[in-house]
């Protein structure tokens, strides 16, 4: 059982929906982003998604692209990202951390070495955008064997025929991408998302968390209501891009988590 599994049990017992936040590791620099991460649990974040910077984030919109560029310009690397996670773990041993990014930095590091290093740093799960089920042997299977959750994306183009394949080697939770598109672009609509979430919930017993296009406390609440939780990324990253001080970023996160927790 991973920290992610335990977190969902806990939320279920309390009758609460999950609030998941995304920020890019090292944006705008290592120290600031560590300070933000450390403040997330108190701002009501149940699961921390930590972006692993990559030069070519093909599923991300401009907001997260630029966050990655800021992080890389400030010297962020995969090793530093794991260091950041480990530094957070010194202060918090229960809030799950999911690393979200693209395969090349992981592949370049070496899969086995990466899994050992990630585990040692206190990472609980992985979302690797460019590894569909067709490429499960690359990282998904080894990650599960190493005791890390491999969280898969399901999307509006994942039809019922394909859904079992997407669910098959997934663990922790399913991340439902609410729109066809990139991060930070279109707005998620609870009316469209609800039936899709129900379809995925019916296909297995993993929690279904919805992300992409959630940018206000109201949206966070509306989406969490029809799912097992909501993810906010670009909206938080925008505040960091504006240069808002850490306490203001965290205050904004609190409004979003309150939204999801009202659901």
């Amino acid at each position, binding site marked *: 059982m991973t920290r992610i599994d335990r977190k969902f049990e806990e939320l279920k017992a309390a009758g609460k929906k999950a609030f998941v936040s995304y920020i890019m590791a090292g944006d705008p620099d290592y120290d600031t982003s560590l300070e933000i991460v450390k403040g997330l649990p108190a701002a009501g974040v149940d699961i921390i998604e930590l972006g692993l910077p990559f030069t070519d984030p093909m*599923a991300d919109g401009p907001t997260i692209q630029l966050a990655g560029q800021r992080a890389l310009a400030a010297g962020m690397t*995969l090793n530093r990202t794991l260091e950041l996670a480990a530094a957070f773990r010194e202060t918090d041993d229960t809030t799950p951390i999911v690393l979200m990014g693209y395969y*090349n930095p992981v592949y370049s590091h070496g899969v086995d070495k990466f899994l050992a290093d990630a585990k040692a740093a206190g990472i609980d799960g992985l979302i690797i955008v460019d590894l*569909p089920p067709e490429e499960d042997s690359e990282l998904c299977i080894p990650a599960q064997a190493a005791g890390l959750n491999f969280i898969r994306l*399901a999307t509006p183009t994942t039809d019922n025929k394909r859904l079992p394949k997407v669910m098959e080697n997934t663990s922790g939770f399913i991340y439902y991408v609410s729109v066809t598109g*990139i991060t930070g672009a279109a707005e998620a609509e609870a009316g469209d998302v609800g039936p899709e979430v129900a379809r995925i919930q019916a296909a297995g017993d993993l929690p279904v968390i919805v992300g992409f296009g959630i940018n206000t406390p109201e949206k966070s609440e509306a989406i969490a209501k029809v799912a097992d939780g909501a993810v906010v990324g670009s909206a938080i990253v925008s505040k960091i891009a504006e240069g808002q001080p850490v306490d203001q970023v965290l205050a904004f996160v609190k409004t979003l988590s309150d939204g999801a927790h009202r659901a």
Partner: protein
Amino acid sequence: MNDLFNSFMTGPDENGRFGDFGGRFVSETLMPLILDLEAEYEKAKTDDSFWAEMDDLWKHYVGRPSPLYHAERLTEALGGAKIYLKRDELNHTGAHKINNVLGQILLARRMGKTRIIAETGAGQHGVATATVCARFGLKCIVYMGAHDVERQAPNVFRMRLLGAEVVPVTSGRGTLKDAMNDALRDWVTNVRDTFYCIGTVAGPHPYPAMVRDFQSIIGKETREQLQEHEGEGRLPDTIIAAIGGGSNAMGLFFPFLDDKDVNIIGVEAGGKGVDMKMEHCASLTGGRPGVLHGNRTYLLQDDDGQILEGFSISAGLDYPGIGPEHAWLHEIGRAQYVSITDKEALEAFQFCCQQEGIIPALEPSHALAHVMKIAPDLPKDHIIVMNMCGRGDKDIFTVAKHLGFDMAESD
């Protein structure tokens, strides 16, 4: 022993792999789309009516077959091997790119897609796509790095004349790889009506195989035409092509892969030289395996797996990766890959103009520069076929600048 077992021509496997290279490294949103495309392509591949339509367009719209031309003066000047040029620069739109675009657009029509997107570097693939879209009345959007929009202005204007929308890409550093990222971002956003027409043998499966198959017309014609020149059964001794993503090269190479006596040489862009400064685009000679744009291949990257920008005088070669089939041919040793610097390519460019009255594109000028290196030491009965994959009209501004020639506009 089964002949197929010894063949280099059976790839990719059902997972889109050439050995360890290739694959389908895309987000879940795109996965169903590339599976659809694969199914449609598999159907078309064995459908005579599809190829009949292709042949008709190749012949009457593109002007195929392109000649295989004995470059006598070049041969004489170099004093060694007998040199033939496969004249794909004579194709409509001035390069090999249209061979592939026609195939993909016919597929798009079969799939009922009405909106075509493409990435372009030098603008040749963008022009070819805009052209065929105009021919079939399809909406066309071309993503082009902002940096390339500047250095390839004539092609930008051509695309606009042809009715395409050219979107300058400012994400990343605004070159070909960023244009490809933005095209992929468009595709995940517009999944229902949009067809992504990729311009080289890269991207997720089935693109590398499909684009290769469409470009293979180059090698198939070469095979027949050389026999017309040199007698039945005569194969080239060496075939050479320039490599950006590797589509014109795969097109020439593929039909000869199983002819073990045919020497195969791919020429990468060496920019300012293949060394630690990484001011080049030689993915095979100066990169290592990684995953980008849907496939595993050799990439220019740093120690952290971050992708580096290539550098080349030729916008068409300015890509930090290479098609996965080339990565495989390199690893198994079936083809040899070398690099040529900007300076050498510029010299070959001028030499070709003067010796043959052909203004080549900067891309095949790289291939020619390598021909110039090896031909003098080869015997006179050694036949080299080089793919003259594009004409140089688009490059005269760049070349003028490097030669210090002032082309300031007169009124």
